[in-house]
């Protein structure tokens, strides 16, 4: 019940913050609910003139279910509104349809978080009160239907014995079509297979379902193997109730991209054969994104497929993304002179030029792709931040230019005696501190410079010091507490994510216990515990400008927080499985999340909308990295592959194959020339990122359709492979001078 309350508060919070009305706090159930509510408008808007077969009674039932749910959660206002709207069913449908045309995360206003929580509750396998309602027009009012049950119902039911025939008939047909269409039409197999199987299971034809699975599971693409394993264990209708993966599969539409020609071919065949069973599934459970032009090749399709719910719709990646960097604040560089004096006196005129250039080129030109400076409110720069910026600039002038010929040196930090307990690592931007999260719930911070870690003195002692003195910041530190490492206790489960604030005063950690904790690195105590996820939190990260942070976890949402709010500012919902990693865009206006549903989503922090969906990974995504210029994204997954994405165009740029195990760490060098990847296979690999991005040819057609043709050039792009001694690489970090730091724990 805590979840429900939390959800409700979230919702109020949302209203307070007053962002765009809906869109933030949605859960997939809700999103799909929208879609499900209005099959006809959504499909007619995209797929053409086909009016859905779903009739009014079914909608009625769904509406009732929603009402029931709202009432149960005491969302009376929403109930009122909905009822009023539902009084005129035509209108209701229309508005719903309009809402849900937003890419996969559109939905209704209000009450959304309640739904979120509700669906979570349902996952805890609380059996719904009533027996599942009959698939079709049963009397629902007394039955108190559960939303998810209604949504996931398979309404029609053919002769179970004929399913095999239907499927193999279609298979025969697709195998006989022209080569150019075959690859495209083959995409239909997997979703169709799953839905037919689930339909059989749902309607209690257990043995038929098993036989069906036996016969055709071998035909499916190998990257669906994991899902098939889940599917195969599910043989009873009762099992379906608690299984969130399948709930998602049933309630969300599997997206396919098929050229118009191929689609016509399929349609004609099914209509000729009167194969209504399959046609109905395609109509109801698949979303076919039809495009004009050449059918895609097998390799093109394979590059993009693999996600839990098919490819991204084209319009999902159409929104404009301001991927440019924010203008650097103008900072007078008073230390510049000092620097020069310190280094050499006669070099004064020489020094000024490069400084001006580097400063000027960055700050004067406003990037056309950059968001407005005040698009989202960012914290003011403090004096200490300015000092740090100056340090940063000084360091960056000494930066080594990397490239094909100039590979970085790699310094490996090995965690010894961690007994396989190291779960997360982070470095500060200036590489002075390392933090490690451990399975024993501790967070440890090390100083890797000679400067030791010190606590601030106690309040009584602080009273004694001279507050006017210049070195007051030095005086407040307690010399007695100096040590090379500090341990932070507070979590009650393995710490899965860890992140330093840019100003090095704070540390975030997230854990299996469902909380995100903010620690002070001055007092080495916990300041805040952010609760809201309720389930394990897999990752968290500070915004590059501080203040904001993002977290994502098993509850399948990512949340945006500000350090001074104990409730999230935004909830990014839409992933169909755990959010496994979260990263901030360098301009802090966007957040990217990777998930176990094998998709990557880019979210707009301002609106909370999902603006990009990238599909193509064949396993849960475990790491993400933005290029320093903000234009590109790299992602690594359990399949051992690293994919590069162009954010502006929403395209896959390159596929880097080489790792043999999960990629856990990715990082671009400071100038974006080199991409370093670290993996469970104990290697660090360096890739020529500059070449990968240069090779990309974006003509209008590929940009418009997103049908890229990847050449297999991983071997050319791989610049180096460095084995460690049975030490999986957990984290990578480029220092400001482009030295690569790697970290991992030695697995004896």
């Amino acid at each position, binding site marked *: 019940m805590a979840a429900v309350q939390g959800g409700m508060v979230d919702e109020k919070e949302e209203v307070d913050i007053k962002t765009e009305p809906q869109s933030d706090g949605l859960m997939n159930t809700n999103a799909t609910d929208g879609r499900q509510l209005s099959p006809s408008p959504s499909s007619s808007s995209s797929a053409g003139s086909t009016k859905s077969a779903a009739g009014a009674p079914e909608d009625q039932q769904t509406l009732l279910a929603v009402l029931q749910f709202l009432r149960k959660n005491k969302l009376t206002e929403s109930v009122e509104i909905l009822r009023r709207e539902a009084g005129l069913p035509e209108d209701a449908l229309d508005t719903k349809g309009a809402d849900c045309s937003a890419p996969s995360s559109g939905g209704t206003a209000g009450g959304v978080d309640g739904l979120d929580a509700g669906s979570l509750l349902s996952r805890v396998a609380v059996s719904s009160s009533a027996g599942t309602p009959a698939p079709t027009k049963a009397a629902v009012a007394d039955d108190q239907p559960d939303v998810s049950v209604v949504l996931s119902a398979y309404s029609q039911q053919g002769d179970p014995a004929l399913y095999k025939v239907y499927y193999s008939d279609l298979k025969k047909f697709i195998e006989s079509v022209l080569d150019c269409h075959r690859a495209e039409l083959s995409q239909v197999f997997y979703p169709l297979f799953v839905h037919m199987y689930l339909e059989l299971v749902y309607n209690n034809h257990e043995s038929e379902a098993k036989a069906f699975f036996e016969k055709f599971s071998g035909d499916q693409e190998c990257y669906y193997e994991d899902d098939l394993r889940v599917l*195969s264990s599910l043989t009873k209708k009762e099992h379906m109730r608690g*299984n969130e993966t399948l709930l998602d599969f049933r309630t969300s539409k599997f997206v396919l991209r098929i050229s118009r020609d191929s689609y016509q071919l399929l349609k004609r065949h099914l209509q000729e054969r009167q194969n209504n069973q399959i046609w109905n599934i395609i109509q109801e459970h698949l979303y076919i994104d039809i495009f004009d032009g050449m059918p895609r090749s097998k390799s093109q399709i394979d590059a993009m497929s693999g996600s839990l719910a098919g490819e991204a719709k084209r319009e999902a990646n159409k929104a404009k993304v301001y991927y440019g960097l924010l203008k650097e604040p103008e900072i007078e560089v008073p230390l510049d002179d000092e620097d020069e004096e310190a280094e050499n006196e006669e070099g004064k005129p020489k020094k000024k030029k490069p400084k001006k250039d580097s400063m000027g080129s960055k700050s004067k030109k406003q990037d056309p792709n950059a968001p407005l400076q005040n698009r989202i409110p960012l914290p003011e720069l403090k004096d200490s931040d300015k000092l740090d910026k100056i340090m940063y600039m000084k360091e960056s002038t000494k930066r080594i230019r990397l490239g094909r010929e100039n590979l970085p040196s*790699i310094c490996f930090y090995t965690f010894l005696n961690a007994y396989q307990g190291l779960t997360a690592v982070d470095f500060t931007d200036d590489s002075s501190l390392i933090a490690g999260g451990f399975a024993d719930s501790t967070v440890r911070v090390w100083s890797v410079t000679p400067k030791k870690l010190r606590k601030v003195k106690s309040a009584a002692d602080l009273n004694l010091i001279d507050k006017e003195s210049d070195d007051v910041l030095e005086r407040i530190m307690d010399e007695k507490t100096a040590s090379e490492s500090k341990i932070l206790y507070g979590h009650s489960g393995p710490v899965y994510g860890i992140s330093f604030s840019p100003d090095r005063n704070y540390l975030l950690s997230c854990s299996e216990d469902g909380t995100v904790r903010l620690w002070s690195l001055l007092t080495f105590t916990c300041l805040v515990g952010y609760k809201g996820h309720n389930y394990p939190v897999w990752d968290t990260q500070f915004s590059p400008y501080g203040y904001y942070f993002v977290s994502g976890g098993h509850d399948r949402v990512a949340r945006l927080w500000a350090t001074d709010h104990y409730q999230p500012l935004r909830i990014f919902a839409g992933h169909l499985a755990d959010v496994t990693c979260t990263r901030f865009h360098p301009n802090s206006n966007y957040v990217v999340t990777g998930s176990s549903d094998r998709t990557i989503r880019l979210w707009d922090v301002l609106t909370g909308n999902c603006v990009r969906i990238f599909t193509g990974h064949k396993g849960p995504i475990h790491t993400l990295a933005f290029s320093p210029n903000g234009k590109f994204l790299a992602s690594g997954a359990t399949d051992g592959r690293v994919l590069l994405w162009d954010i502006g165009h929403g395209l896959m740029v390159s596929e880097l194959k080489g790792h043999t195990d999960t990629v856990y760490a990715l990082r671009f060098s400071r100038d974006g020339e080199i991409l370093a990847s670290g993996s469970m296979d104990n290697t660090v690999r360096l890739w020529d990122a500059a070449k990968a991005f240069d090779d990309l040819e974006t003509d209008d057609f590929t940009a418009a359709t997103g049908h890229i043709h990847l050449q297999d050039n991983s071997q050319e792009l791989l610049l180096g492979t460095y084995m460690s001694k049975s030490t999986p690489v957990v984290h990578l970090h480029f220092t400001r001078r482009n030295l690569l730091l790697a970290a991992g724990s030695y697995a004896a």
Partner: protein
Amino acid sequence: MAEERRQKQCSVTLPTESMKAMAESVGVGQLQEESCVALSEEVSYRIKEIAQDALKFMHHGKRRKLTTSDIDNALKLKNVEPLYGFQSQEFIPFRFASGGGRELHFYEEKEVDLSDIINTPLPRVPLDVSLKAHWLSIEGVQPSIPENPPPATKEQQKTESTEPLKVVKPGQEEEGAIQGKGQGATAPDGKGKEKGSIRLKPRSTHELSVEQQLYYKEITEACVGSCEAKRAEALQSIATDPGLYQMLPRFSTFISEGVRVNVVQNNLALLIYLMRMVKALMDNPTLYLEKYLHELIPAVVTCIVSKQLCLRPDVDNHWALRDFAARLMAQCCKTFSTTTNNIQSRITKTLTKSWLDEKTQWTARYGCIAGLAELGPDVIKTLILPRLTVEGSRIKAVMEGSVVSNIDKIGAEHVQSLLLKHCASVIAKIRPQPDTVEQYRTDYGYLGPMLCSHVIKARTQAALQAQQVNRTTLTITQPRPTLSVSQSGLSGSGGPRTPSIIKVPSSLTLMSPRPGTPSQPSPPATKYIVMATSAGTASTQQVITLSSSQSASPVTSTVPSATSTLQPLVKVESGSGPGLAASRPLQKYIVVSLPPSASSSLEPKSSVLSTSVSSTPLDPGIKLERSESPGVSTQSPH
């Protein structure tokens, strides 16, 4: 139908018997079959679900092994109470029990006495987590330091030396990639062949970096320097450092040249140091020495058999060096001898030839015997034992003769004790009791009585050991023939690894059963492969050269040993142990004779069997079977 599906990868369900057993364990007596089926399906499904969730925790924990805490976390996720305190020292903590037609696996929960736990001292506090930094790569090149994996694994070095065209050194690969010469980098696991259809082995440049040069200088200086502590450190480094691959050619040249010079100068100390270096190199698990054996083996053999190794042969203990080098040689044979290079047989030949030479001095004689003896009981049995009589008479001549130099006398004494030491244990195994002095004297001549006492001692020792040593824990640290197996039918139970010539694991089954049970069948497939070829054409020995193409004369003889002259080199002890001869029907004796010392070799079967070593040398296999045992088939050893 259902049964078929069970075979399928994922649709495995728990057996209904388990359901019954579990129901009984919680007090539900008679569970109906249908309920069992329904339960088992449900339980299997839930278990799979939990396992899938647990997998998630494993992935996020960045581990490859699923742990019990992952399962606990997955249970928590489902709002199920975790299994508290589930831990076990063992991998699978289940016990098996059966009875009444049912089989059960259960988790043994022992009752633990609380006071025991309280009174046991606390285990040591585990070491705290610590950070250690090292260079994984310096400007694109991985330094060879102990923290990094060896640049070329032993397997790679091996394939490189055996199949030079297949492998590319990782270092070069990376270099090629860095320079971007269109090669592209590949994974260091030797995938280089994909790149082009024609691949020439790249010219390898043996340039050492400055650091490596410095290291080499330091190490070699320390190894032959005067400071023992430094030397120990240097040797330790050689034996453990993973990055020595590049420097191996230098080291082997250093050793070989060092031996060459110091043998001439009779510098015993330096020779010992160099041998210790060889030992350290051989101990290094990351090095594959085969490519450098042509330099190392002559050096080692020199240290075994050289006439003079020290300035004052009467005082200095050069015997120890010979022993040490002989052991090295044996280790070398064991590790590197293959059918292609035939190291062992070549070494054996060399040593035997020199031993048989009348003019060989006592020092060299000692070395030859030591070298042979270290090769294992098989060699002792076939090569040394037959010569005991001859050797004995020679020793006798020295010991009891009047006009001999002191040096000769010392040499003879050492040879005598060496022979006694090595032969006693072997005889103890192959010769049935009782040990009578008279019998020994007839069999072994001058050394007989001494041998007899030694054998008796060896036997009592063996018996003692057999009592102490448990049935299965026969651990043998040194492949010395003095180690013995218990006589209670433990033969071949797996423990003893003898440095046998060819890898026949059960060579210790040579030991006869007790005389009382002559008919006891011993392991039938025992092969005695004693020596391979007779020719030494392809020898690369520098110090000791082999004469080429000796005619070999295979001998099958069951003649009593007492009558043997020089020619029959292999004989089966049948005269004194009658039970032994008939008891093993399937034994195969592959025997190569040695060149007859006298020209009057009138062997009945002295056929031409000389083979060239370079071709597969064992195949003309001089194979001889026990002729009197029925059903023996002639069979080549390979």
